């Protein structure tokens, strides 16, 4: 019972399109799991199911002790434990960087403005953007915006962080600065699940790689599994990705 996340035989369809076809995997405390696979293989959907952004038709999902598959799930309780960062940043454009970060701690945890501000500066320092507190999102580069989005999640002190292709919209240099922040997080012991196309990063940082194919977990193992795939599909995928 040390697993932070445990999916067991999860099924999910959109209409007649079977997107998750019996997905099972576990992520332990402090583990970094990289979910990889072709476009359309169900990676984002799996991540969204973990955060109760989608409802599932079969199987069970347990996240930080919450039964996510349960109809009676209190989503807001789950949200206190899980942070998610999206490919498109989704910062609130009318709020400054600092206000973006302060919003959830003041609204959800009822922190005072001053405490929330201190917290905002602390997490901003962690992502290397201490001096941008008063800026508006549109004044920042994509990489900076994504780091603010990560900081915004961190401010809620989640036990689990989910990342869905958070560098896919960025050029290589900006990708590097975001990945560095994520690597620091991993080293700090954060439990993370990241959907990514950055194979080198997965190999280096992930303690577990989950290869999804056609809505199934096709292969799973440590980062080194990418060097000696056992299925031809993964071999193909790794080969084409290089």
């Amino acid at each position, binding site marked *: 019972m040390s697993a932070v996340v445990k999916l067991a035989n999860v099924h999910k369809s959109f209409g007649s399109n079977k997107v998750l076809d019996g997905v099972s995997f576990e992520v332990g405390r402090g583990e970094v799991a990289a979910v990889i696979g072709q476009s359309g293989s169900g990676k984002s959907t799996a991540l969204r199911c973990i955060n109760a952004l989608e409802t599932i038709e079969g199987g069970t999902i347990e996240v930080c002790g919450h039964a996510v598959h349960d109809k009676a799930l209190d989503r807001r309780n789950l949200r206190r434990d899980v942070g998610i960062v999206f490919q498109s940043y989704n910062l609130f454009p009318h709020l400054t960087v600092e206000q973006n970060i302060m919003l959830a701690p003041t609204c*959800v945890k009822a922190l005072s403005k001053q405490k929330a501000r201190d917290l905002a500066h602390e997490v901003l320092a962690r992502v290397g953007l201490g001096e941008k507190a008063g800026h508006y999102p549109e004044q920042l580069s994509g990489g900076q915006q994504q780091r603010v989005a990560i900081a915004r999640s961190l401010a809620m002190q989640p036990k689990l962080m989910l990342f869905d292709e958070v560098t896919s919209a960025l050029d290589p240099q900006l990708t590097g600065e975001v990945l560095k922040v994520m690597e620091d997080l991993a080293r700090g012991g954060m439990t993370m699940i990241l959907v990514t196309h950055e194979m080198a990063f997965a190999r280096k940082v992930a303690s577990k790689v989950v290869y999804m194919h056609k809505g199934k977990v096709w292969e799973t193992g440590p980062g080194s599994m990418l060097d000696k795939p056992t299925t031809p599909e993964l071999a193909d995928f790794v080969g084409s990705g290089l």
Partner: protein
Amino acid sequence: MTYQFDFAALLPYWHEFLQGALLTLQLSAIATVLGFILGTLCAIGRADGPRWVRFLVATYVEVIRNTPLLVQVFIVYFGIATLGFHVGADMAAVIALVVNVGAYTSEIVRAGLESVHKSQLEAADCLGLSRTQIYWHVVLRPAIERVYPALTSQYVLLMLASSITSQISAEELTAVANRIQSDTFRSFETYIVVGVIYLALSFIVRIGLWLFGLVVFVRRRKLGTAL
């Protein structure tokens, strides 16, 4: 054919013109604030409410948009009296104007709400905000910012349209003018003066809403983006 203008004949009435103009401003200001609140609630109800709320709002909006304001004013005025309540003409005028402008506001704000991307709601939801908090902190300000010019025009129109309430003898600017022209027989001059006053009032309303926008939409002010 030469017409002898005699604006001097109106001079003794300047105080009444002023009173009328002030009442017009007052009626419109109250109707704007209440109409904005009503319209925004309706827009949210229509976007996110249960089916019966959506139906109710849609019906209200269509009825108001497809009947003349003058008829609405009469219905409110006589309706209230028939129900046994005693409210003055000014009060009836305000109620009618609120009902009217609330419907138009709800359509404008609805467009604003639709312009806020679903991913914004999702991000706020994932941070643990409640639905009310999401509307208040994440959705409303950008939504209203985007349709603010349309709202401004609507509220200037409202101020001009309030002249119709002279028909139930609310003592606003047009009603005052009607009385003065029948006292003085200087109809042409009276309505020219009133026209100029309305122009000035429109200007005041626009400036007022512009200043309000500067206060509320801080980012626009700081980054210098025009509304």
